[in-house]
């Protein structure tokens, strides 16, 4: 029943897409300024139906309707209500339905909200967006249909992968999807702009809000994923340069570059071609990331979602997208004259773009090189943190200086006399750095530079905030919050990296391990039955040898029955100044447990500063609405 409704709705959406493409193409020939009412209606119906289909799937999950294969494979009656709903996008099929939802909803919103822009441009955008929708709908219906039914109907489902049963992970995919799939709309808009010759400042205005929306959600989605990895995976870190994390960073670099150069296009009407390239690149990289993750070419924590047959489809679609984008771009590209003054805002924004391009290429090489090597020579290597740290970290130093100074310059040509201010702040940053060095311990030259640059950026941002309070001119505030967030992020990551303690040892119940700063006593072990899992809970008494403070940490080993899986829950004590982190895992056929204990300073501040980066974007989105 639900299966028929769902498939019916999807087919309707597909037909509506074809109709939209047809009517939009015929409306292109009519040379008046307004788009036909019927096209709006088609798009509205399309949006309604796709949202209904998504609700149909949610209902299937809530009611545990195991006649749907997707529900049977990913849900279970004993699962908590919240995770039943989250299960809707926890599987490949469900998440692809979410993907198509976002394509359709953005298509409608873009059509409605850009009513004062050129008609031809809007129609072309609509056509391209609907081509994307058709492509993904075919994929959904033919290869990954969430509404496929199963007969006889099983009485119980297989359950959702337990590592996915986590609040952070329940919201991680929707956030990322709004971020990544949201890019589709300015991919289509860029194609539309090329074909309708509607460029420059007006084009920048039409896509500005959409770029910001997807930037905010991408940033937030990546942070939430990282928080999940820290709390759930028990790896004891926040960023691992895991191939899938890298795949999510690539579009983020492109979109961050785009967000900045879009300002230049809007204010100075230059860099049009570059903005178009970035628009196209952002979505292409998003789809490439999806391809690499879903096809199983990359091995990582996300491999539960892979299947090569999907890979062939996404790859063909990706190739089609890239080649049509390239051909349309080269056919319609125009020569531009660049006229930059060294001391102008646009130069600094261009510098930001060069850095972003460098980071992008580095991560891309680190991610693709092992795949290429494996395919061509059958040699398996993995490119890990050392590569990225060596290549990226030195570049972060000048990058942060530019982040502080760049926004101070005016457009076209500026006579800003900020030299003494910069000198003064650099000296201030060096003093603070020496202070940390003196009181907390030694670190390498590179770390010194990182700290100085980060502190410089932080100090500069604080001065800017002070200026805002005096002037009451708030337009710069979002930018300052994001840049300050980045400075703080690098600073706290540096501190965390330099002053973390890590101990790895085996203990059995009753034993005590003495480390330099802590006494760790494994007091006892309890077994607790929960609704959908059984937990083995260790009780560890930690005594801080410096101040004799006693704390209890209770890491768990969870044994899920549906499907049968072990997960390791870290015990984490979060404080303002540091996190204590303890995981235990059983050593097979012995009474010993392997214990990993870490003290990580300022962990929570890493999350706070990362959230500040995206907060800046959200504030700007809200403020802009008030301005209009």
């Amino acid at each position, binding site marked *: 029943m639900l299966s028929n409704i769902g498939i019916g709705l999807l087919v309707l959406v597909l037909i509506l897409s074809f109709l939209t493409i047809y009517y939009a193409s015929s409306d292109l020939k009519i040379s008046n300024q307004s788009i036909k009412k019927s096209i709006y209606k088609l798009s509205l119906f399309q949006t309604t139906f796709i949202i209904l289909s998504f609700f149909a799937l949610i209902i299937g999950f809530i009611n545990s309707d195991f006649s749907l294969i997707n529900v049977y494979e990913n849900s279970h009656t004993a699962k908590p209500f919240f995770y039943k709903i989250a299960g809707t996008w926890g599987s490949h099929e469900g998440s692809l339905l979410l993907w198509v939802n976002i394509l359709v909803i953005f298509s409608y919103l873009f059509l409605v909200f850009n009513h004062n822009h050129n008609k031809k441009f809007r129609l072309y955008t609509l056509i391209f967006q609907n081509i994307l929708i058709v492509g993904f709908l075919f994929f959904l219906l033919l290869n990954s249909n969430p509404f496929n039914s199963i007969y006889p109907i099983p009485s119980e489902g297989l359950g959702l992968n337990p590592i996915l049963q986590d609040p952070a992970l329940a919201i991680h995919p929707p956030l990322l999807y709004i971020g990544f799939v949201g890019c589709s709309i300015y991919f289509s808009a860029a194609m539309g702009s090329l074909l309708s010759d509607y460029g420059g400042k007006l084009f920048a205005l039409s896509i500005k809000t959409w770029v910001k929306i997807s930037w905010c959600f991408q940033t937030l989605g990546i942070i939430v994923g990282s928080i999940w990895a820290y709390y759930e995976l028990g790896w004891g870190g926040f960023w691992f340069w895991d191939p899938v994390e890298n795949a999510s960073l690539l579009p983020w670099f492109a979109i961050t570059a785009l967000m900045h150069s879009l300002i230049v296009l809007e204010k100075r009407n230059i860099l049009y071609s570059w903005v178009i390239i970035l628009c196209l690149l952002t979505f292409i990289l998003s789809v490439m990331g999806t*391809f*690499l993750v879903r*096809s*199983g*070419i990359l*091995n990582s924590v996300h491999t539960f979602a892979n299947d*090569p047959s999907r*890979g*062939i489809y996404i*790859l063909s679609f*990706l*190739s089609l997208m*890239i*080649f049509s984008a*390239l*051909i349309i771009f*080269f*056919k319609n590209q125009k020569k531009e004259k660049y006229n930059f003054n060294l001391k102008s805002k646009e130069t600094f924004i261009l510098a930001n773009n060069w850095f972003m391009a460098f980071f992008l290429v580095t991560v891309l090489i680190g991610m*693709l090189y092992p*795949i*290429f090597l*494996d*395919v*061509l020579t059958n040699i398996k290597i993995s490119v890990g943190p050392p590569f990225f740290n060596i290549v990226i970290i030195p570049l972060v130093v000048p990058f942060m200086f530019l982040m502080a100074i760049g926004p101070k310059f005016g457009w076209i040509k500026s006579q800003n006399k900020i030299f003494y201010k910069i000198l003064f702040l650099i000296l201030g940053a060096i003093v603070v750095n020496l202070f940390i060095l003196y009181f907390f311990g030694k670190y390498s030259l590179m770390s010194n530079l990182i700290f100085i640059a980060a502190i410089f950026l932080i100090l500069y941002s604080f001065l800017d905030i002070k200026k805002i309070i005096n002037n009451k001119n708030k337009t710069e505030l979002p930018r300052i919050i994001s840049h300050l967030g980045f400075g703080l992020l690098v600073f706290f990551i540096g501190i965390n990296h330099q002053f973390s303690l890590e101990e*790895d*040892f*085996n203990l059995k119940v009753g034993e005590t391990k003495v480390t330099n700063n802590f006494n760790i006593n494994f007091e006892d072990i309890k077994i607790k039955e929960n609704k959908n899992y059984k937990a083995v809970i260790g009780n560890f008494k930690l005594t801080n040898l410096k101040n004799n403070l006693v704390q209890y940490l209770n890491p768990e080993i969870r044994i899920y029955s549906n499907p049968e899986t072990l997960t390791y829950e870290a015990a984490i004590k979060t404080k303002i100044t540091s996190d204590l982190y303890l995981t235990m895992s059983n*050593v*097979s*056929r*012995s009474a*010993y447990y392997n214990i990993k204990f870490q003290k990580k300073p300022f962990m929570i501040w890493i999350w706070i500063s990362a959230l500040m980066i995206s907060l800046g974007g959200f504030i700007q989105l809200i403020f802009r609405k008030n301005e209009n």
Partner: protein
Amino acid sequence: MKISILKVIIFSFIIFSLSIFWLGLKINNNYDTKSLIGSQISNFQLTEINNDEQYISREDLRKNKYTLINFFASWCAPCRTEHKYLLSLSNKNKEIKIVGINFKDKKINANNFLKELGNPYGFVGEDADGKTSILFGIYGIPESILLNNELIVIKKIIGPIDQIQHDEILRLTQ
């Protein structure tokens, strides 16, 4: 559309990348070290744990009729349980030479471990960073690989050796 060198480079790079992706789809990515059985081990070089000047490499193993390479560490609890079987193997069949590879361990701890439980190894190689063990396709320890004198893997044991595997090794090396 005019053809320029830049465009040719861009297109060829993209076509190259996409075809690699396409080929990549066909490769079986499931990591399975069982496929190593019947194949020759790759070359390696390790220093003796207590003597930095003494080396062992693949070619040295050709002298032995059979070689059992055992990956162990003092911090690995199951390694303790399998140790008595290693001792028994070294006593029962003199044609098996056991090479221990000490995986991500500290020298002192490894020596204490061998002092406490006995030393079944003809040679103990040091692999402090675990890089050499990767050449053998090791997931985690303990793991053991049985080779013949042509350096072909005839058996691979993942996890500790128990009585059954102990007997199996003796049977294979008869």
